[in-house]
């Protein structure tokens, strides 16, 4: 694509495709199944599964009665049978759906934008938790620290996960384990600072230890962890770099950083551990960075801005690499296609020579799409723009 020609200078490109179909703002985007599908959720609670090779919806249902706050997949649940995805809605519900490959073909594909869709068939609902949904804070998910060992014994079942959502009280975070649906922890805000509401949460499990990262209304970002042996959660890092509420944060565990964006003009890179370098801020000169996401290879991250632009930054230097402008209204959600060796692409690489010529047109398409380093940006206008970047 054009990207290569433009080189390192700031990119002003055309989207590769626009997905139209939502009639409300896009609030959440997530790639699943090796980038074969993109799931999008809008402010009316509708969720659409898009088949990326053909850029068409393959499943449409109303997952929540209120706006979708977040969509993510159950880590480690991917298998040949399909994925588990979790949606979080303004209707105070957190739902876990089983998306079997066979199921997808049975879902309705009538788009919300087409008219008032009738009751559509939903995927199999595994869990439906009543959780708090005060503001636009989405849930965070991580493999439960304890389940890493146990999951090995039973291969079939996906590992246990922890889901973090903001608590009813301002500044509280509730962590629930799934599938047990049991409260795992409640984290209270540090008492020495004024945090306000929890605006963004991140979970990070590293060598059996869980870290909880929170962004607050007051602009604070904190990292909590459990001191050895103790059940108390201590804030091990507290920093206020934003003057406005934090809107989004994402973790780059490999780099030992996490990034936060807020309603102001600042992007901040925070250290994840005590050891890593100090906090670094970037003044972007445009306020309202609704969503921030780090690509799986941790080389770049992107923000979705209220000015309708998605921007790509280098994860290391925080230098702006590309401005992706297409939407005329604010961008609310972002998703990176996963990069790296997934199971199926490994297989394809292995006998690529032997397999290549046997591929049908459709398979070639799928392969191409899965290897494309795409970025999806969802906007207030109900459209999702797809970009091929780096």
């Amino acid at each position, binding site marked *: 694509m054009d990207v290569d020609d433009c080189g390192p200078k700031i990119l002003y490109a055309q989207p590769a495709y626009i997905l*139209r179909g939502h009639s409300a703002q896009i609030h959440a985007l997530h790639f699943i199944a090796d980038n074969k599908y993109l799931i999008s959720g809008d402010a009316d609670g509708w969720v659409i599964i898009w088949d990326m090779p*053909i850029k068409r919806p393959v499943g449409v249902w109303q997952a929540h009665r209120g706006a979708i706050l977040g969509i993510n997949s159950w880590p480690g649940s991917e298998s040949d049978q399909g994925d588990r995805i979790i949606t979080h809605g303004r209707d105070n519900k957190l739902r876990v759906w089983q998306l079997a490959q066979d199921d997808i073909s049975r879902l309705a594909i009538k788009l919300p934008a087409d*008219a008032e869709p009738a009751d559509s068939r939903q995927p199999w609902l595994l869990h439906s938790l009543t959780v708090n949904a005060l503001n636009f804070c989405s849930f965070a998910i991580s493999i439960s620290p304890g389940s890493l060992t146990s999951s090995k014994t039973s291969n079939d079942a996906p590992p246990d996960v922890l889901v973090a959502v903001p608590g009813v009280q301002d500044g509280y975070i509730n962590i629930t384990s799934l599938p047990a649906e049991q409260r795992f922890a409640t984290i209270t805000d540090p008492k020495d600072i004024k945090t306000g509401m929890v605006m963004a949460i991140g979970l990070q499990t590293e060598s059996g230890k869980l870290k909880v990262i929170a962004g607050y209304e007051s602009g604070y970002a904190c990292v909590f962890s459990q001191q050895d042996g103790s059940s108390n959660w201590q804030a091990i890092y507290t920093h206020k770099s934003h003057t406005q509420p934090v809107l989004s944060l994402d973790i780059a565990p490999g780099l030992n950083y996490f990034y936060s964006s807020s309603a102001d003009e600042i992007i901040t890179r925070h250290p994840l551990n005590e050891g890593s370098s100090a906090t670094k801020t970037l003044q972007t000169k445009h306020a309202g960075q609704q969503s921030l996401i780090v690509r799986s290879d941790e080389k770049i991250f992107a923000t979705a801005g209220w000015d309708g632009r998605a921007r790509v930054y280098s994860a290391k230097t925080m230098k702006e690499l590309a401005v992706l402008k297409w939407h*005329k209204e604010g961008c609310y959600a972002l998703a990176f296609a996963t990069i790296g060796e997934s199971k199926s692409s490994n297989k394809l690489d292995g006998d690529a020579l032997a397999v290549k*010529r046997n591929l049908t047109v*459709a398979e070639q398409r799928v392969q191409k799409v899965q290897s494309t380093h795409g970025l999806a940006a969802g906007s207030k206008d109900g459209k999702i723009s797809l970009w091929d970047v780096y």
Partner: protein
Amino acid sequence: MPLLGPNMESRNQAFQALKPQCVALSQAALTANGQARSFSTIIELLERLKGTVFKLSVPGLLDAKLADYIFFPLSQVLKLSNRLTIRCLELSLQCLAALVAHGWRQNIEPQLAAQIVILCTLMAERKPKGFAFDESTDELQAASLHCLHHVFDAAGRSPSCQASFVSEANFPQLGQTITVVLKGISDAPSLEPQLAATEALEALTDGVMTKEACTSFLPGLVGNLTKVLTPTTKQRRNHQVLIGCMNIFTNLVRKTLSDESTSGKRLESSKTTEFVASKGWEETAAKKLEPALRSIMCLQSHPRDDVTGALAKLCLTLLEYCRKSLADCSAPAIEALLSLSLPEDQSSVRMELERLVGADSTLCEQLQTVVYDKLRSLPTAMQSSDEQLKMRRIEQVQAAYELLNDIGADNSILDKVLASALRDSVVITLQASRKSSDVISTHSSSVQSMDLTNLDGNRWSTEYGQSMVTYKGQAGVLDRIESFVRIVSKSAASSALVADTSRSLRLSEGDTQLADFWLLLIVKQSATQVSDVVTDFLDLGDHDASPPTEALEEIYAFALSVLNSTSNDDASPDARMCSLALRTVALRAQHAGKDFRYELIDALYPVLHSLATPEDVLQRDSTTTLTIIAQACEYSSVRELIVENVDYLTNSVALKLNAFDISPQAPQVLLMMVSLAGPSLLPFLEDTIDSIFAVLESYHGYGLLVELLFRVLAVVAEEGAKAPALVEGAKKALAAAGFAEEDALRPISIANVAELLKEKAMEEMKTNAYGSSVGEGHPKRPWKDPEQSDDGTRDGEQDEEDAQDQQIDDADVPPPAPKTYQILFKITELTQHFLPSASPSLRTNLLSLTRTTVPAIARHENSFLPLINTLWPEIVSRLEDEEMHVQAAALDTVAVLCEHAGNFMRSRIVRLWPLLLEMHARLVKEILFTGYGAGKAGYKEQETHKPGAVALVSHNNGLHNAVARLESSPVDYTNTNLRLLWTALVSTITASVRYVAPSPDNFDEALDMLAPVLEQEDIRQALEKENADAVWLARIRSGALAHPVVPLVPAGCQWAFAMVAG
């Protein structure tokens, strides 16, 4: 023994018949002494004799003895030859020939034969010496040559005779004879002697002359024969002569120079040392023969099959028998054979050639060299202006290549030059066209020629026309090249060709790239066909199928880039390039079948894009491609193809427009999409429409573009207004307008007053009667349905909610089908900025666009009414447009607004009223002025007015008539605008009366203005609804109705009151 029984008898009869004649002839000959009379007797006798001899010339009748007998008088005659007339000689020679042929035959005596040969040789000359005449005639020459033919024929069968002929002693005479005969062939003025000479020589060389004799006379023979066989512009040889000479040549060559004979002779030569032929001689002979043969090869283009057949024989002989001795001649012979084997019916030649080449590797190499040279020189040959020649050249190369392929030769060297030779040839052919003025393609520049009606079914052909041809001559050459490439692509060379061409395709540009693309496409096309056929029968495994697929991918990608570049670059690429690209896409589609649906995301838009180009040829190719794709993807029609994939198209168009690509194609495609896919597409077009707005904003100065974009918007509006929710809405809005009517001012009638009073009285009575029960409230809702009672509590809540909802609804009901509605609304809103545009057609279109959207937009009053407020000034200002049809359109728009906004328009109409009056006055003047008022004023009156109806006030009779004439006159160019405006004005006034409820004053004026058209049913009804009495009065006044006349008393009668009893 042959002469027995009945034969004996018939021989006797023959003898009896001959005897008197022979006696008479010999007497005549003896007595002849130079007098003319005696010669005439001889002629007479000779003719009779000739008749008899010819009659006897059936096998078995004439024998040597009879021949001897007949010869006697003839010899007597011939003795006088130096005095005889030509006719005598001719006749006697003819008899003699018959005798030789049928009498003596092989038994002819050598001396006699020799004598006849001497005599005939003498007489066969053009200017024979020692005769009574100076110049011989054709007939005599022919007769003598004929005679020679028979003698040689006979001599060939008699060994003794033959021996004497070729004896060394006879050589001078033989030489003389050969010279004369050769001269006869080449110089005789007419066909007969030429033919006779040819036959004679053929008989001589074939039967009589030994190899030695041939060898000694070879130079002369070859020289002369070559002269005959070389085509010249001066003389056209008869084909029989040519064939004969060719056969002689063939025989000579085979006899003297064949490989066996020379090698065999070498053994002999040790014994017979006297003979001149040596290796050295052979070499010189071969050297001399070569140019001769080359010039003979020119005959290969001779139109007659038998001639070329003979030449083929000669060539085959050369190849088969003289391969070594005449090695130098192999190449030209192969070349000649190649072209000789081209015609369909000459497959035997080809088979022969194949056999020869297949059997001998040197020949094969030679053939390869020939092909190599030809390939190398092909581009040069393409520069010639002789199309036929060019085509032949290609055909030859093709034939040779095919042949080499068939025998399985290793063509790797050829394959190396193949690609470049073909490419260069194509390039040269293409470039030649540029110089030529003889261009056949006609470019129509109608961008609008996309005919949507054709999109259904499979009416479009799936056959492409010629893509590359721009002038007539090219077609043939390119056809040949194409068929050659098809041959190549079926061979092993195809991969080399593909590799070379695709490498070049990437690097080249212009015509070379075009040529590469074309060649590759052909290779792919035939390769797919082949593999289709092959895989139908055989399962070859995957390794065989993959290379074509891969290469196809490659050119498919290239094709897409070509098609996509149409829109991006300023200089649009060659139409031929696009057309090839379209073919490639179609090929890919056919190859992939239904699977190609996955590719449509990339491929469909570029194809449609090319459909919207102004070039005729490309449009045709584009439609063909669409049809092929639709078939390949198993869509029932192109329409279905487009409708099913409209989301991809939407995306492409949106991206194009978003990038401010202002080529007309994208809007064209959008236009087509919208009109095909209908209103359901509109919700997805939001941003596209926005992009159009942005483009409109930036490029508002570009009239054509703006008009095109508004045409798109108009279609969008049209389709949007069809959205089910909005159609329903429009109906409701109409009903609402009907409601407004009832609020209108109307005088209160007595009956109303009476009713009012009655009601009042009733109420009073009620209050009086039931005064006590007022305090107790009655249920405000009906009793609940027992079925619903179980959730009674919730019901109550719901009701409250409903009530709340109702309230909210009243405050701000969202419009139906919000996205579509928004689009329509925005489009309509946008028109205000373009209404003052300079283009009258745009202004009209905008107004009509507004009329389209208004009924739909009216569904949502809260946004509709402010919109009217916004648009109103612009629309009103259009009423004073300089173009009458724009005024008319503006009036129509006002009418539509009245219809849908109802009473909201009242104040506006009131303010507009003076303008309407003014327009009306102006229009009336104009109508009267332009001649509709003049002339036969009384003519209409009688027709339209009821008998007895006389206008009470006749001041506007003229106008009335004029209007009637205006409306009834045939449509022509002079009055269109006037009529348009008049109709629009009438409808506007009618609408304002019908929907807006004007003030009484305005109504009166409206009635006045509409007076001429009051008789139209709908107009009258509209007015009557408002005030029927006024209408009645107006009609009375204008005389349309017979006014109620007080019955007149018939003459002589009197009125009388009827008497009523009681």
